[in-house]
């Protein structure tokens, strides 16, 4: 049952991810990306990380992608027109892609032998309490540094926006 659900949502995630690239309209791409985020959330849930799954939907699929869609709607971006592909792309595109995927698969298989594969239901420390405790004890410094980084980014955005206005 777990494996079936995993396969279904993994396939949805991959199909949506490919759809993000091949759609010509930004809105369609953004919606496909929401699909990717949603299926990833289901995979997190399968692995026993329920807080992460909820945060994934609220933050990525909900907040960030809504903002994307909002900006695309606001700018009224139209469908992009396809230009003819260059000779190099036509020649090397598919072989390079196959090489990359093959290399990734090979590396993953070498690093993780069959015995240490993920087991569904084996991980039970994904509750909000566990995540909160880990964030505010073991990973306190990285957590705080990240939040300061985000604060700096917000300040930077405001400064840049103000400069535009003057």
């Amino acid at each position, binding site marked *: 049952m777990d494996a079936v659900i995993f396969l279904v949502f993994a396939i949805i995630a991959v199909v949506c991810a490919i759809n993000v690239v091949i759609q010509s309209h930004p*809105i*369609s791409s953004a*919606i496909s990306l*929401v699909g990717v985020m949603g299926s990833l959330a289901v995979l997190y849930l399968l692995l026993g990380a*329920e*807080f992460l*799954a*909820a*945060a994934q*939907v*609220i933050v990525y*699929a*909900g*907040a960030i992608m*809504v*903002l994307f*869609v*909002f900006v695309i*709607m*606001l700018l009224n971006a139209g469908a992009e027109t396809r230009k003819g592909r260059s000779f190099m792309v036509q020649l090397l595109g598919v072989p390079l892609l196959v090489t990359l995927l093959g290399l990734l698969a090979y590396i993953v298989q070498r690093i993780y032998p069959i015995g240490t594969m993920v087991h569904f239901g084996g991980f039970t420390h994904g*509750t*909000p309490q566990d995540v909160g405790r880990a964030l505010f004890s073991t990973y306190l410094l990285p957590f705080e540094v990240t939040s300061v980084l985000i604060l700096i980014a917000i300040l930077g955005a405001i400064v840049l926006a103000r400069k535009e206005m003057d």
Partner: protein
Amino acid sequence: MDAFIIISLIKVLVVFAVLMTTLAYLQWVERKVIAHIQVRPGPYRVGPHGLLQPLADVIKLVTKEDLLPPYVNKPLYLAAPFLAITMALLPISVIPFGPSIHVAGYQTYMQLTDLNIGVLFILAASSMGVYGIALAGWSSNNKYALLGGLRSSAQMISYELPMSLAVAAPLLLSNTLSLHDLVLTQDGGLWHWNIFRGPFPQIFSFIIFLIAAFAETNRVPFDLPEAENELVAGFHTEYSSMKFASFFMAEYANMITVSCMATLLFLGGWSAPWPAAYGSGFVPAIIFAVAGLVALYHGMNAARGRDRLTFPVFGVIFLIIAAIFLLPMVQDWLLPLFWFCAKTGSILFAFIWIRGTLPRFRYDQLMGFTWKFLFPVAMLNLLVTGLLVAWFS
């Protein structure tokens, strides 16, 4: 296992049927209440006091011609109402209506499922609900719809922040994310409810939550996305028949969800205002008995001929309900259900009441209010709550 599946199926059917009926009749209640606020009778023709009006509306909406404008973005135009109604109905699956009960030897919750991230689940579903409206506005290819969709997304993104902060504060007091456990921590009377409970009563959170909830559900005074005088009908201008009905139902389902959320987070869910040892168990029976006696009295001194018949009938029905509330074997689940419905119903009434009272905000006032006032206040409230909880624990 089989029993679990059967009980779950029954629960799903019951909750779905009740929710759909509530959705239909909430609209009747809204039209009636608004009408009485504005001193007019409201729906009156279909059935006694217009009670069959929702049925007539449903038949009208189902049999109406389903127009598909030629200039829309078809896949997204068709997906938008579906998305809106799905995300609006989803949260009801985690809302508890009562404690755990025994049915024919099996123990079960009066709730479809109890998630340990129930609160987050509802927030996630409501944040996905924005897509329905935003995509409906965009895919309609109509400037009024687009403006409505834009306004709505901007408004919902902005008000989600104070709403989440307001939700976080009572969670600090209750120390759980499961909606079932959340109510259990508030058990034992009015002064244990999160809205009045120490160390920091969540009355400010409650008000912030309600204000944000009005904006999230696009209700007056924050119904800018469908401001008729500026935007025709806003994001659903191009929709007709069942697709329009989906948006309509989604709005009412969202109203019910946020009312349930407010009840569970702040008002103690299904717990009675004071312990059963001091007689809170008799309140529903007394209320219904008084209602029945008043109806009987008016039946005897009838102002119109037909009242001689209708008032005594309703009086007897109310008296029977009052008697049912006194039966010991149903009290276990009927009393919690009564308190839950009473609290949720009061908040729903406030929604309608405010619609009949307040004018619409201007767009800049709407945005300025949330970012310059509501958000800082919610932040401050969360900070104070956190400090006091840490201090006293």
